[in-house]
């Protein structure tokens, strides 16, 4: 690449608060050329987004302060621009898309209007803008674009919303597109299509692209060059192939080794005891309708004749994309919602007929770890209160005098420190919070832990640690796991058996090896192919597929 589009040099940004100064990035340098894709790879807290935000002028000051560096673009230092000058560049020459398109689209305006707005801000007449908005939506392959211009963000699926964001970002044919975790919240199949779209647009327009991500698979698939960030510093940079094949920095090596899906399949002896058996589960939801109209009420089936068994001590993986019914299944297993038909038996007794003591016993034996550890821990309770709460609920498990020791013991078991008991959830990182949630789940010595996307929100390296912890605990306590996830490589490493769900139905069931090595159902095949692999060599293969 001879020409440089944007060059960030020696950028340092710090955030000042009463708790001291946080150096979010220190002396970071990177550059991107026209038509090139630069990936900024890092885990949460690495500062990977900060430099991009500084380029866009999106750092709130206070508390943020840019303490050094330049960002040269077209002969001007972006960091020195006035507000008005900045607004002339933002959205026009450099544009940006974000991780969570639902939050980043204004919920109260139609999507067409929001695309037009970008154009109108930069001087396009409203008639012309309307025409362009439609063309753009067609360009990003939004189905029925013409009819959907007047729809609102909440009426679209996650992938469609990201397409809309992209349409908005490329509206004025920018020189540079900054994509901040653009596919993180999306299903693998959708992610693949969005990445294809971005590449396609890049090929057409020759724009430069900065892709900020934590996902090595994504980097391998779309980036030309990569910089790896850790704790606010660039630890390594270079062509993707070089970095992935010959990582120079130990951190990069650690990252690469933490990527799931590399371990051999597990072969565990199946124990004969069946803990949970689901028989013909059906869950129908009523669609909104006119109650005065006679006739069949339209319903939608979130679960459609789902049957399976969970044996003692095994890990049962359940995979599926959003809308596959896996969340409904989890809620039904937890007895949070009544199935329309079918039953769930726990050691032979229908769970929904349990009352009083028996129900409490079931509650004790089946524990859960949710996806979002931030939401599932009460922010106003200390860790001690959170972890000891199960004992308060189930009187008699542990005398109150021993709670303190019990909590500390559990914290140590999940890899935290005893003194953490007096802190509050917000004082921990995501991975630590998930460990706390696991400690809470362990408090009652359950037989089964239901992990509902339990590691999806975590960084790869943290994911690997938590999975390792779960495995260790399984060995120690003889736990059975129901491991619900959308991330196939994770399931591959962790599960003994796998159920694949699609649109409420079980489409395939088998041992992990059967599913991954010899998938039968076309949907399973598509899922496996769509999930990105951190090997740049496989890139071409994927593109052909």
């Amino acid at each position, binding site marked *: 690449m001879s020409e440089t589009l944007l060059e960030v040099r020696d950028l340092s940004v710090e955030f000042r608060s009463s708790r001291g100064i946080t150096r979010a990035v220190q002396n970071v340098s990177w550059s991107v050329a026209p038509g090139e894709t630069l990936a900024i790879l890092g885990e949460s807290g690495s500062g990977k987004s900060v430099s991009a935000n500084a380029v*866009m*002028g*999106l750092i709130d000051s206070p508390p943020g302060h840019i303490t050094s560096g330049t960002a040269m673009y077209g002969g001007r230092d972006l960091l020195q621009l006035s*507000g008005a000058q*900045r*607004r*002339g*560049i*933002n*959205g*026009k020459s450099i*544009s*940006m898309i*974000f991780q*969570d398109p639902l*939050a*980043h*689209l*204004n*919920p*109260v*305006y*139609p999507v067409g209007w929001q695309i037009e*707005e*970008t154009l109108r*801000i*930069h001087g396009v007449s409203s008639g012309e803008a309307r025409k362009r908005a439609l063309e753009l939506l067609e360009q990003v392959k939004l189905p029925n674009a013409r009819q959907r211009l007047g729809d*609102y963000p*909440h*009426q679209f699926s996650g992938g469609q919303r990201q397409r809309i*964001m992209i349409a*908005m970002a490329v509206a004025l044919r920018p020189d540079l597109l900054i994509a901040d975790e653009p596919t993180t919240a999306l299903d693998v199949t959708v992610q693949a299509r969005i990445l294809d779209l971005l590449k396609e647009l890049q090929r057409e327009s020759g724009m430069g692209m900065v892709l900020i991500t934590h996902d090595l698979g994504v980097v391998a698939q779309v980036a030309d060059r990569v910089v790896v960030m850790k704790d606010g510093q660039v630890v390594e940079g270079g062509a993707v192939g070089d970095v992935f094949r010959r990582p120079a920095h130990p951190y990069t090596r650690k990252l690469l080794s933490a990527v799931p899906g590399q371990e051999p399949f597990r072969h565990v002896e199946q124990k004969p005891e069946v803990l949970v058996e689901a028989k013909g589960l059906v869950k129908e939801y009523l669609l*909104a*309708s*006119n*109650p*005065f109209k006679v006739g069949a009420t339209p319903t939608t089936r979130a679960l459609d004749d789902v049957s399976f068994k969970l044996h003692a001590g095994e890990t049962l993986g359940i995979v599926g994309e959003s809308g596959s019914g896996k969340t409904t299944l989890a809620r039904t297993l937890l007895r949070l919602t009544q199935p329309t038909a079918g039953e769930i038996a726990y050691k032979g007794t229908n769970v929904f007929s349990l009352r009083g003591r028996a129900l409490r016993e079931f509650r004790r034996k089946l524990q859960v770890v949710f996806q979002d550890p931030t939401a599932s821990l009460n922010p106003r309770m200390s860790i001690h209160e959170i972890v000891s709460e199960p004992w308060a609920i189930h009187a008699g498990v542990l005398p109150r005098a021993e709670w303190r020791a019990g909590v500390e013991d559990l914290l140590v078991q999940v890899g935290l420190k005893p003194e953490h008991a007096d802190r509050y959830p917000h004082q921990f990182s995501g991975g630590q919070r998930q460990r706390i949630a696991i400690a809470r789940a362990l408090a009652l010595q359950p037989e089964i832990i239901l992990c509902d996307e339990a590691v999806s929100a975590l960084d790869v390296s943290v994911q690997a640690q938590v999975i390792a912890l779960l495995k260790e605990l399984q060995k120690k306590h003889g736990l059975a796991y129901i491991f619900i996830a959308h991330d196939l490589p994770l399931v591959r490493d962790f599960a003994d058996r796998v159920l694949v769900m699609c649109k409420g139905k079980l489409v395939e069931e088998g041992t992990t090896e059967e599913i991954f090595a010899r998938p039968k159902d076309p949907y399973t095949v598509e899922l496996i192919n769509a999930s990105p692999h951190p090997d740049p060599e496989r890139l071409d293969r994927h593109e052909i597929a």
Partner: protein
Amino acid sequence: MTYYLTKRTLWSAVSLFGLVVFVFFMARLTGSPVDLYLPIDAPESLREDFERIHGFDLPLWQQFVDFLGGLLTFDFGQSLRQGVPALELVLRAMPTTLLLALYSIGLALIVAIVTGALAAWRPNSIFDRIATLLSLLGASLPNFWVAIVGVLIFAVTLRWVPTSGTGSVAQWILPVFVLAIRPAGLLVQVARSSMISALSSAYVKTAQAKGAAPARIIFIHALRNAMLPVITVAGDQAAGIINGAVIVETIFGFPGVGKLLIDSIMFRDFAVVQAGVMVTAVAIFILNFTIDIVYAVLDPRTRGH
């Protein structure tokens, strides 16, 4: 949507019915109106005639049955004081009250949105602090105090506006301002805090990345999102005015429902009390309904429930 509307209307009808029944019996617990209407030395025959003419000699259940019968044809009976159909009296007074509510809440909203938005743009700035203190003050001032001081300052001393009356536009200024002060105080605070949260949301980042100017971000992107809580509180305040802007209506000689209702309560004019409560309840129902529509207009996510 139809289902929702039907359900809501049915429930409201049940509430309204419960309300009038409740009012019927509660009102009669406050004693007989006879002594209030007749001079203190009125002879027994006059008292008897009065009771007979107005049906107070009938047993309570009979009065109640008659009342329910009247309800079917929207007949709330005659006003004891004024000898005209109670409903007519109330309906005649309603527009004044509704207009008062509309103008003052409208004014409060404008003040609140502008002040709240500017205060939220730079939280904890001097402007923000002053606006917060003033709005708290506005929300803490007694209505009648503001009304009389307002008359003394603006009508008597400065002679900008007439003291009272309803005839001209100028006569509406003072009452509207007096009624607007408390809602404005509350709304500024609500607007400020919801603007702060709107301004920190992700879509504002997007707008900045698009190159939108601050005014556009505040008034186009954040404001509409921040309006929902503001509208809710404004609705409650408007309901409060419809339910009884008594003091302002009384002081300024505005013949509104609040004054009518309070006079009727003090004079045990049961028919008017019943009609008044019913009509204000319906008005508040319509108001809440309108707010739901405004909600749906402002926020597409609330549509289709």
